[in-house]
């Protein structure tokens, strides 16, 4: 994968821009793991594109030296898909938060997943809107207190990102925790390696606004998936996405399967049509002869 003569180190992926997150924010850990994973794969700086939406975590591309696109709120996935489908030679990584990806951008996720667009999506899930200073998000617990839900959120359920991704056909689904950096490094490396749409949900606590789902809470809650977990078994993956032991959450790779990616499918379709970049355009005009 590496085209450079000298090996890139993790720090070589950092841009000169200082990260702007609050002290202790889980996103710092994610940024570190991303750099480590990029270095592990020796991703070329010039042909890697980091795409994000809007929110605290969506600032991440600025802190990397690669090419990037800081899009509009909720639109990172379809923009990233455009990049990848137009230029399959590029490595495209998407970053965002739970509000960006599952609330305002929630309509795109199922389609990117079922189309198996070859992207790596790293969601920094903090169960809250941080940039707008503390509102209940789709992954917040029902009844959670936020500035627009001061008496508790009236929502009946929250989104289970893993189950959602599994149901809509994501071919790689994993969960990590910013407080377990080694495992997170490994998961992100695997996600980058995966051919097809890979979704990594990283629990990345917001120290400033989320006083319930805190770092300490997650430190006690995260347990590894059982050693005998079969990541080729979709039903087992769904079961573990829903049913962890009481008060616990699983981390690790829940599911992985190899299916044709959208780029592969498009290439096959084009091939059937005898695709030719240099096709004589007169053919397309003369098709309209009466």
């Amino acid at each position, binding site marked *: 994968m590496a085209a450079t003569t000298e090996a890139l180190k993790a720090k070589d992926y950092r841009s000169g*821009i200082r990260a702007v997150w609050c002290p202790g924010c889980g996103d710092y850990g994610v940024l570190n793991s991303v750099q480590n994973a990029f270095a592990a794969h020796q991703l070329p700086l010039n042909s890697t594109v980091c795409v994000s939406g809007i929110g605290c975590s969506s600032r991440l591309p*600025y802190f990397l*030296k690669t090419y990037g696109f800081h899009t509009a709120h909720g*639109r990172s996935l*379809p923009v990233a*898909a455009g990049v990848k489908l*137009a230029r399959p030679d590029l490595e495209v990584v998407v970053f965002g938060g739970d509000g960006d990806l599952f609330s305002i951008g929630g309509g795109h996720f199922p389609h990117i997943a079922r189309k198996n667009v070859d992207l790596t999506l790293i969601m920094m899930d903090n169960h809250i809107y941080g940039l707008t200073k503390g509102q209940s998000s789709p992954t917040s617990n029902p009844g959670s207190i936020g500035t627009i839900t001061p008496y508790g959120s009236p929502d009946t359920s929250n989104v289970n990102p893993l189950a959602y991704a599994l149901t809509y056909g994501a071919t790689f689904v994993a969960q990590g925790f910013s407080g377990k950096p080694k495992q997170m490094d490994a998961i992100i490396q695997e996600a980058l390696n995966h051919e097809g749409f890979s979704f990594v949900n990283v629990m990345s606590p917001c120290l400033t606004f989320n006083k319930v789902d805190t770092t300490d809470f997650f430190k006690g809650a995260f347990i590894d998936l059982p050693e005998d977990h079969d990541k080729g078994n979709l039903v087992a993956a769904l079961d573990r996405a829903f049913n962890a032991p009481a008060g616990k959450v699983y981390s690790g790779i829940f599911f992985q399967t190899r299916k044709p990616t959208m780029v592969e499918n498009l290439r096959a379709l084009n091939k059937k049509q005898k695709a030719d970049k240099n096709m004589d355009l007169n053919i397309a*005009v003369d098709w309209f002869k*009466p």
Partner: protein
Amino acid sequence: MSDLIIRIGGEGGEGIISAGDMITQAATRSGLNVLTFKTFPAEIRGGYAMYQVRFSKDHIMSEGSGSNIFCAFNQEALDKNKADLKPGTVLIYDYPDGDIAEEVKIDGVTCYPLPMSRIAKKDLEMYRAKNMVALGALSFMFDIALEELKDLLREKFGKKGEQVVATNLKAVDAGIAYMKEHNKKTDPFTMGNVGKMAKDVIIISGNEAAGLGAVLGGCRFFSAYPITPATEIANYMAQWLPKLDGTLVQAEDEIASLANVLGASYAGARAMTSTSGPGLSLMQELIGLASMAELPVVIVDVQRGGPSTGMPTKHEQSDLFMACHGGHGDAPRIVLSPENVADIINLTAEAFNLAEEYQMPVLVLSDGSLGFRTESITRPDPAKFKLVTRARYAGGEGFKRYEITPTGISPMSLPGDDVAGSYIATGLEHNESSNPNFTPENRVKHCDKRFAKLKTLVDKYHAPELQGDGPADVGIISFGSTMGVSREAVALARKEGLKVKALHPRLIWPMQVEHIKAFAATCKKILVPECNAQGQLAELLRGQTGINPVSYRLYDGLPFSPQQLLTKIKEVM
């Protein structure tokens, strides 16, 4: 006779549209020019459908005024068109033993009964051949391309077998035979033979033209969501892009389709989406992003009756405000306005060049009339389409993606270029290096930079086309398909000796203010006809140029007719 308009109306699903397509194609083969106009019900089956063809030995500028011949497949169609059955026109109608129960007599109108239902059902035992009975009668009675029609039937139905060809030919002959036997021709309408079709003619719809223009303009990435009346553009791209090794995406919604296009453009592709009003509404936020991040994208908007779901299958020109000003913030963009089908090909191709050169969204404002119509046009020569590409980062250190330049245009890097060319495309206000920056000084500098590109364009763009010269009592300014109607109305007025002229701008936004002012200075009054209720073009003209035009608005779902406009011209004088 040099100009003839035939209209066919009936129940959707009765083969009205396919019959219309066939006579249109046959007439083109016989050397005639054609321009069609259709209305569909919003439902797949049932509801009123209409197909109108204007035939001419000369260039056709618009749908024309009313019709000379109306062919009614049922009572509803007859009722809907009664007002247009003026003295001097002809009616052919399904009678007897069809849906129309009584013989029709209208003062001054030549009425020919033709039991098309009965002939199809009883004599031919194939009700679906009703439209062919009518076609045979029309082609024979008005001497339009009968031989070409029969050849076409053999070609079209050949694949389905001899039996199908024979039945359809029999239906055509039955229509002819009935007319010969029962209706003595008393009307003056005879098109006659032109001889041979010109060698370099194609027949193409406005929507297909947008697709062809895109392909000729170098478009190789397309993403869209289905929407009436723009879906045929996607259909065309879907057919041809794979052959060109391009990328075709059916997106989950219009937000995603423009998002796909933005991503593709960021990565270097010449990319487009097509939609109609409701889709363009959804795209507004990302049009702003394209403007802010300075990404070349092309959007074709085939306008329809709005707001909301409105009248999806009807003609309107009510997206002009949204095209020029839609979305939040100050977001420069380019809006082009094609007059006819040939224009759509040229302007859609040009839209890619402008998008690339000025690095901003370019909208092509088509409309229901343009999108659905077919025209016979001179065959475009692919070799004549020259592609302009975006200014590119040349490599090396010191690159600033949004460098301030006199033209406002700064070179762009693409992923895969040098590491030193990397930048974060962003919707945030940014500095020259594309880092977020909200200082007052930076804000003004970069907002001005983006708008400077519009000035560069206006200074460089060719003058709008002028029709007629010298001082005039009335000068017309219009956009889109209404330009064709204006052109015909002005020609009619000038034939009558009236001092009328017109300006036909292709670049509708940014406005070519100096050219418009100069034009207005030669006219006593400016008349602005447009198909929307608010007088959107008139309003923009007032704001931009200070001239105060007479606004003429039509918003009944139909295009203007030249006669309607001529009457208004005389009224304004």
